[in-house]
């Protein structure tokens, strides 16, 4: 690995960290437009973050050290995810450290820690949220894994870089299995990012909330980090989706030329993706918590179907 690749690697992480709140803001803006409301400015999330960073931390009496460590762990996990998902280039020196399966593992790690944090204070809502989060998780995780399996069966590899390369730069072929996988992935990422119809990031309505319930007790810089990591998660999932299903525009080589191509392509794709997300959120209604297993079960099923379809139709390819 050359110095440029290392720079590119770091750059990718930094871009991620920087763009993530923007994406969140963009999604909110689109949603408010679609609901005929007047939108907050695009950089609202940045303001919010800095405000939170300046606020002091109000910590419950019996919060354990774990509770204080979790926000940093979350950020770390999400940064790691951004580092290995090919967004600006597929030639990433750090990518070999973790392949698709490991990526799922890292997301799971983050989830487990935030769930533990939710239970740490010992409030009714906290444990409620953690329980629901884990419920979502144990269905979403295998579904996501199956999506990756479909992709990696096509590309005969589980390393994300290789997958994206094969999908992007091999001669064009239509993979019906990927269609299934795509739908499954969309559903999973909706659930994972606490979006309608599974969760609603905009409310504090006790009975419906999941993500918010867990982080109720956070405040100040901790809350800022949690929010930021949530944004990062959304960013990571979007990039993942784009990389898997619309891999075009991610250059193999290094060099500023490629970079110049890659960044606008990414921005464009993210903008469209964000708008679509907002659209989905607007069109669908929040469902009862015990519909969620069915929803995710469907996603899981679709992913598995995708694999079967691959065995059936694409063995030759």
């Amino acid at each position, binding site marked *: 690995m050359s110095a440029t690749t290392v720079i590119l690697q770091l750059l990718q992480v930094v871009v991620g960290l920087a763009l993530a709140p923007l994406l969140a803001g963009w999604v909110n803006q689109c949603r408010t437009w679609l609901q005929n409301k007047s939108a907050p400015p695009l950089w609202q999330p940045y303001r919010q973050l800095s405000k939170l*960073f*300046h606020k*002091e*931390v109000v910590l*419950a*009496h*019996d919060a*354990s050290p774990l509770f204080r460590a979790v926000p*940093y*762990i979350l950020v*770390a*996990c999400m*940064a*790691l995810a951004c580092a290995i998902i090919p967004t600006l280039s597929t030639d990433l020196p750090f990518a070999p*450290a*973790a*392949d698709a*399966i*490991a990526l799922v*593992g*890292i997301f*799971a*790690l983050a989830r*487990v820690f935030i*769930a*533990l944090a939710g*239970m*740490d204070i*010992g*409030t*009714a809502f*906290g*444990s409620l949220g*953690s*329980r*629901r989060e*884990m*419920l979502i*998780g*144990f*269905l979403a*995780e*295998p579904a996501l*894994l*199956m999506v990756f*399996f479909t992709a990696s*069966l096509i590309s005969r590899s*589980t*390393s994300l870089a290789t997958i994206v390369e094969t999908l992007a730069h091999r001669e064009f072929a239509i993979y019906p299995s990927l269609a299934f996988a795509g739908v499954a992935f969309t559903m999973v990422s909706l659930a994972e990012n606490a979006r309608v119809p599974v969760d609603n990031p905009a409310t504090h309505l*006790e009975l419906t909330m999941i993500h918010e319930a867990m982080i*109720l*007790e956070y405040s100040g*810089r901790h809350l800022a980090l949690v929010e930021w990591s949530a944004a990062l998660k959304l960013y990571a999932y979007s990039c993942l989706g784009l990389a898997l299903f619309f891999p075009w525009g991610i250059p193999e080589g290094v060099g500023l030329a490629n970079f110049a191509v890659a960044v606008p392509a990414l921005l464009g794709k993210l903008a469209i993706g964000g708008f679509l997300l907002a659209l989905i959120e607007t069109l669908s209604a929040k469902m009862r918590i*015990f519909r969620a297993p069915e929803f995710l079960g469907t996603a*899981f099923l679709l*992913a*598995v179907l995708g*694999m079967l379809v691959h*065995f059936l139709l694409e*063995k030759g390819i």
Partner: protein
Amino acid sequence: MTAGAAWLPIDAAVALAACWLVLGAAGLFAPRNLAYVGRLLFPLGALVALLLAATGLAALHASPQVMVLALGLPDLPFHLRVDSLSALFLVLLGGAGAGISIYAAGYFRPGEGTAPGLQCLQYHLFLASMAFVMMADDAYFFMVSWETMALSSFFLVTSDHRIPEIRRAGYLYLLIAHIGAIGILLSFGVLQGGSGDYTFAGMRAQPHAGWWASAAFGLALFGFGAKAGLLPLHVWLPEAHPAAPSPVSAMMSGVMLKASIYGLLRVTFDLLQTQLWWWGVIVLALGLLTALFGVIFSAVQTDMKRLLAYSSIENIGLILVAYGLAVTFRGFGMAALAALALTAMLYHCLNHAAFKSLLFLCTGSVLHATRSRSLGRLGGLIHRMPWVAWLALVGVLASAGLPPGNGFVSEWLLLQGFLFTPGLPHGYVNMLVPVAAAAVAMTAALSGYVMVKFFGIVFLGRPREESLVQAHDAGTLERIGLTWLAALCLLLGLAPVAVIGELDRVTRPLVGHGLGEAARAGGWLLLAPIDAARASYSPLLVLAAIAAVFALAVMAVHRLYHRRVRRADPWDCGFPRQTARMQDTAEGFGQPIRQVFEPFFRMERELPSPFDATPRYRVTVADHLWHWLYLPIARAAEFGTRLVAFLQQGRIAVYLLYSFFTLLALLFFIR
């Protein structure tokens, strides 16, 4: 033979096992003297365990050695043999045993069940018999060690025998173990194939025809499965593990279950020459069922040790899945892939031994500190017993299969194995595999759920009972034991390349291939079992990255802003009065699982009526198999006894009639 001055590993191993026996016997000299037993004998036992682990490592690098003791039957003296497979499991036994023994040294308290000296005897007998199981090289010695293992562990399980449930658990355990042993004996009988030679060497020499081989395999699967907790023979496990004292639970779940896995491997890949691919498929299916069943049931448990016991069932299921995959690959003659699956399996054996023992020991400390096993009475212990809590967290992450924990490595390998199945030349298997992979993934995810429940309810939140306030942390010896096991977890999690290099020595003799050089090709840092382009994983890098970002973030935030913290009551959406009782109970946390997997359970609910002044909610979750399998068998036996009882009806005339008819019948018969 052990001729010559050379001091071979096998001599050392046998000597060490003998040392255990001696230590056990020494316990009888002062059975009630806790200082003598606890502070002297058990630490010595731990030392012996360490040495045994070292010996195992040495043997792993040495060529197979045999030894014949002048004991046993006149025509069948005790044969012993240490090859790489035995060596690996000896390492496992020694490694886990060291931690558990040192912990046990601090664990036993006066006036609990059996006298400590007696427990010392039973415990070391248990260890020694397991060591001999892994070294035995003929059917008789194997059976003797095997049953001694069952017997000693039975006595340990029932050491607090005043409680009827514990007696019942012990009975169930020993009964199923015995029935399993019968299956194993039959399997050996088939394996010697009429030659009458019951040494393993003789069995290897036998050519086994297809159906006989299948019969032997089936019987072995039954026998060892009964000990491992394979569905539907798992019923003893969730009863016996909670009943036993925690070090014993740790030993049983961490090591003894692996002994049965060892036996299965020994029979399938060593004694039998041919492996048929459909054996693998069957085991794969059974393993999946077991894994899912185990994890689902552990999610709804309210007793922390039962929870862990069911999670042991789950892990055994995963191990068997890997095993089934290996057999299938082997059956189709794909050595490399068989090696991959087998490596995953062995790796998971090591991992489970480490983290499950750790977790059981942690429950032991909690039990001592709070006198309660019920999750409903615990909580907030991270403040009272930080050592146990943080060490438990290591085990929890490992058990949940999260990177960079060790549980993740083996699951990663397993899933890699699944990704290669498209190569299989058999359509149905091809179709089956994605489903299997999905089930495995789901199991892994669910184990995350379980572990969050376990750790969150026991250690986090607020204490659910007033008495928990004076809970104390574990003692020094206990801490040493826990730390040792946690260190093992980290080691296994962070140095996969080295471990796989060792496992390579085991898989080569069994399936004729290994991942050693492929893994080494990726460099010591990067684990790439096949090639880096295909799949790679580096726990060290992952950990380093996370740590780095963590540190950076902490520094940055504290540097750029401030580090002010104000303590206050929890906000909780502004609810005014909150009590610890408002947290999720174990039942509550398991409720979604109960709802999603309703058909798996046999549930009895008691819902309070809305007008109830003192509302009570009760739910018991039972296992269908009792009613579908075990009770019918019991009834059948009962019926048989009623039939024969008719013979003995007390009338002498009738008795005379019997002998008269017997006489006439025989006279008729010989005419």
